[in-house]
């Protein structure tokens, strides 16, 4: 039975089925199965999908579909882990968002999905995120890394604003900051006082690994 439920959960993600993913995640809790095992099965499944994407066998619609099914299941499992006073092993906690005034989500979603696939815990703040919201999230979640995306040259300065506020609130040293998006360059990242810049989604995963181990 245990195996069957976990297998069904994995299958729901592979089939991009958000409803089924939610149903089987709830079943995990109801049947009092080990939530850590379920979480591991989910991340392993999404890691495999990420790999197939990296090899050019799957594409964005599938990657995003799997990520959405996972995002439906994971909070249910995580709540149960918390309830039991246990802790899920991850490579680190990352907060992501597209800056204020910018509604471009696809690149940021790709980064989020590939980070999760690699084993990070990701809190996605969405798009058009006001600086205050980034700052509050850094305070509340205490992430290892804050990632900000901006596609437009007109919204890129928002990244500078977030960093300035973090400095004012003495939070800047508590988090590593990585930035990306089509409007961003290495030089801009340095100018605004970010820790690192990356242009591609797979590269962002590598970079996050480096930032955490530094």
């Amino acid at each position: 039975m245990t195996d069957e439920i976990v297998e069904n959960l994995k299958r729901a993600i592979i089939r991009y089925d958000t409803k089924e993913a939610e149903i089987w995640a709830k079943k995990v809790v109801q049947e009092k199965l080990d939530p850590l095992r379920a979480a591991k099965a989910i991340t392993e499944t999404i890691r495999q999908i990420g790999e197939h994407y990296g090899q050019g066998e799957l594409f964005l619609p599938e990657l995003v579909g799997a990520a959405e099914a996972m995002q439906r299941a994971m909070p249910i499992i995580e709540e149960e882990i918390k309830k039991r006073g246990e802790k899920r092993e991850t490579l680190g906690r990352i907060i992501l968002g597209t800056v204020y005034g910018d509604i471009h989500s696809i690149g940021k979603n790709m980064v989020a999905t590939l980070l999760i696939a690699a084993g990070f815990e990701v809190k996605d703040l969405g798009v058009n995120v006001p600086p205050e919201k980034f700052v509050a999230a850094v305070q509340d979640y205490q992430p290892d890394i804050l990632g900000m995306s901006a596609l437009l040259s007109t919204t890129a300065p928002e990244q500078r604003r977030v960093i300035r506020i973090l400095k004012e609130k003495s939070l800047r040293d508590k988090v590593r900051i990585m930035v990306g998006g089509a409007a961003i360059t290495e030089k801009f990242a340095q100018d605004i006082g970010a820790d690192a810049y990356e242009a591609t989604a797979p590269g962002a995963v590598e970079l996050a690994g480096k930032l955490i181990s530094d």
Partner: protein
Amino acid sequence: MAMRGFKLNTQPLQLLTQEQVEAIHQGTLKVLSETGIRIEHQEALELLSEHGCQVDFQKKQVRIPEYLVENCLSKVPSTFLVKARDPKNDLKIGGNTVYFTTFPGMRIVDLDTWKSRPATKKENADAVRVLDALENLHKILCYTPYFEVEGVPPVMAISESVAAKIRNSTKFQLTGYGRHCELFNIKMARATGCEIMGQCCASPPLTYYEDAIESAFRFVKAGLPLHISTGDIFGGTAPVTLAGALVITNAELIAIVVLTQLIKSGTRLVVADFVFPQNMRTGSPAFGGIECSLHHVAFNQIWRGKYGIPTNIASVGLSSSKKIDFQCGYEKTSLALLAALSGANLIQLHGGVHGEITYHPVQSILDDDIAGMIGHFIEGFEVNEETLALDLIKQVGPVPGYYLNKEHTRKWWRKEQFLPQVADRLTYPEWLKKGQKDALVLARERMEKILATHHPVPLSPEQDKAIDEILKEARRYYQQKELI
């Protein structure tokens, strides 16, 4: 179940008015009945004479009356099946189906120096193996890929080529002729349980030599399909005016339509348009000239549209460029797209680089993407309740709604979008990271991958032995004739 190929799901592109088509047709009838065609083949002359043609046996000139032309044109099947070695690769030629086929080159071109040299036997076999793997390549032509192969006497080139294709691919093939090699080629096809298409080419203007006609007789009598072709050059072997050139092409091809249908009514035919403008500076054909397309489009309108006979557009797969480069790409793509849009049933696109001189499997891989693009375009798209997606549009609404994460997108995107195999489609930063590769580099990589992994269904040991025996027989035949 034949290979699907692509379907032209729209009215074919037309250049001519009905009056213009009629003017070319009437002109053709006049040329056939007044000027006539020179046919250097006694049996053909006698057969045509028996059926009401006016034959000058001394000049070997045949004047064909209108009624015979109309009668024979109506006997050619407008669609027909041909059998490949593997039944899944059978072809159903005609109608609105578009298949892609190859264009040969005499030698292999070096991808770094762009100089040509004879191919080795292994390179020849490998080039066929690549063709076997390409998803948008449906038929392999004669001589393909190379007709100058190290260790192969010229007189054996065609038969060795047929053997290499049978051994390294299960796709359907066309063979050349000359010095009676077609006898051995038909035997090889029979020994391996497939059909083979024969060929008969004019020597323009208005002439057929004996070996071409002998080939036609042999294939038709064997019950095999035949590909008939001209080679007109506007301003060289045909009038420089497109309309006049179309009359010459028509007259040359119709003469063989008449002959083949008299030998055996209902013989399966493909008519090939292999034409070029004369390059008025060098004297060679102007490969890749857009005038080819003016002729091709009108040719499709006349032959597929008016006569209902399947067409093969030949002068597409070769460029004036010596390199696999921008010019080669735009010449081949423009001509292939116009051929497809105007209703060609077969398009010779894959592999040829410069003017019948060079070929390369990397080019065939690049051409396979062109074929896929064109095929995707001519198929059009569906308009129905599901594709209109009105419910979905309502559900998603304005920003921040989007479609990338929708089941509808996952279901439809692969059908609605063509994915090229080797085109560079990376983002700029990814491209920088991944070695700044262009399509040519990526095609070279795909070739290596195909050669490492693709193994066509082999012949049975008995079939393989039979091919060896037939090739030995051919060698003995040519040794006796002191041609080897």
